[in-house]
């Protein structure tokens, strides 16, 4: 059985500044580094492998495990097109963005990736990783929206169930993959 430790990357400069990143990137803040260090310390099981999305913030986070880091672009955050680099405060004037935020099931992706596309690729990456490590503990560093979509998919629950579940920087979830069992935190 594969046990995943899924982590959101630590708080970044743009997280703090309230700017959307998507496929863009910014480095971890001091708080972000501390968040990750705390989570990494909770890991007591030896990890067979550590994976990260190709975004700098995920890579920076993943290297706190002090092991080889395997990059997978399928683990990236949702692509947010025109909104990337914009301030969340400014986007509150944007109806399309408000739908994405508050009514995701009604959101129709035009310039962004769709939740379906995101979920498919992240789930595919994790399936491949689980196949490679059928009896082991594996850490995977990914992103806020990607993680919520993934957790919804694993539990076969509607996205809405997880959507308003804010995931802090460095926060982890333990997932027994084949059993589709999820627990909050690293255990």
């Amino acid at each position, binding site marked *: 059985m594969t046990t995943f430790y899924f982590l959101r990357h630590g708080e970044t400069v743009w997280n703090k500044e309230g700017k959307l990143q998507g496929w863009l990137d910014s480095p971890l803040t001091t708080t972000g580094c501390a968040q990750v260090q705390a989570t990494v310390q909770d890991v007591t099981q030896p990890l067979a492998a550590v994976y990260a999305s190709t975004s700098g913030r995920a890579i920076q986070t993943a290297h706190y495990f002090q092991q*080889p880091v395997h990059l997978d672009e399928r683990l990236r955050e949702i692509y947010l097109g025109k909104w990337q680099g914009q301030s969340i405060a400014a986007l509150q004037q944007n109806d399309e963005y408000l739908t994405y935020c508050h009514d995701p099931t009604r959101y129709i992706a035009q310039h962004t990736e769709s939740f379906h596309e995101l979920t498919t690729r992240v789930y595919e990456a994790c399936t491949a990783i689980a196949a490679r490590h059928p009896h082991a503990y594996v850490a995977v560093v990914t992103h806020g929206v990607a993680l919520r979509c993934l957790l919804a998919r694993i539990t076969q629950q509607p996205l809405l169930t997880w959507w308003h579940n804010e995931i802090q920087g460095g926060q982890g979830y333990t997932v027994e993959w084949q059993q589709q069992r999820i627990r909050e935190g690293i255990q």
Partner: protein
Amino acid sequence: MLPSHGANPHYVYEALQMTPPQTIYDFSENVNVFGPPPQIIKRFPQYVDLVKRYPDPLGEPFLSAIAHHHNVPRQQVVLGNGASEIFSLLARRYANKNVLLIEPTFAEYAATLQANHVTITQLIVTDVLTWELPITAIQEQLPHMAAIYLCIPNNPTGAYPAREQIQAVITMAAQHGCEVVIDEAFLDWYDDTKTYIHQFNHVIVVRSMTKMYAIPGIRLGYAIAHDNVINALKQQAPHWHVNAIALAIGTACLQETQYVEQARQYARLHVQQLQKALTTYGCKVTNSVTNYVCFKPPDAKALFYFALREGIVLRHTENFVGLNGEWLRIGIKDEQSMAKLYAMLDRWFQK
């Protein structure tokens, strides 16, 4: 956020929404501060004649000149529109395969590899100061890899790991059918006799004319490897990808032995001086053998911003894996610029 390359200081100020001072001293790139060899500048009008004809498709006269320079047959050389084109061609070679990168290292490898859907595995060196290789971890990862990239002398640290370590990696790689890409872009600042050119069938050496001869605008680099590898790379390259002026300038540069020796001596002297000063200020400083210095001050970000306000642009390391933005890199520049740099460092560290 901050631009991920050196050499464009105005982008740095723009990204930070800072007004650049009147005079800017750019330490963020590592091109020979003495500029292109004077003979090249003098001869430049003659190169105009080359414009109206197609360049030699094989890259002559530079191909033969560089093959002769390194004492290898021409069949073992592929030219590139900069070493950057070579890295692009290499990334295609490893498309959909696995490649091992030893970090911190030149960020462009990852960029080219990702564009070709290569699965990258990153390993951080055991010691940033010496770029000591994590041999055990490398041994564990190599069996899965199509290639391992080594930037030696290393960018951004300037360090050169122990030869026994490099040899160990080359041997292990051979055992697993893994290629070794060695980026020697900065070797000519150190010691050309230490090259891995023409030594092993599975080693691909990448070189560049850009740094030592100060011709980044001309775009000229090359790789030397086994004939089979070279042929495969050549097949992927566009026709006439190296222009006629680059070929002529590159050939002329190879005559400039005194120019190179002067550049090395100047860089060595100033690197030593700078390393000493930074150590005195309580910074960790890498064992650099190139024309730049990499160091860890108590607060890299604060120093970076302080320097910017004074018109001095250092190279941040936010996008170098394993450095966490806690280090800064300084390229050796002319004496006047160095004086300004020292004055700024004095002010910063005496506070």
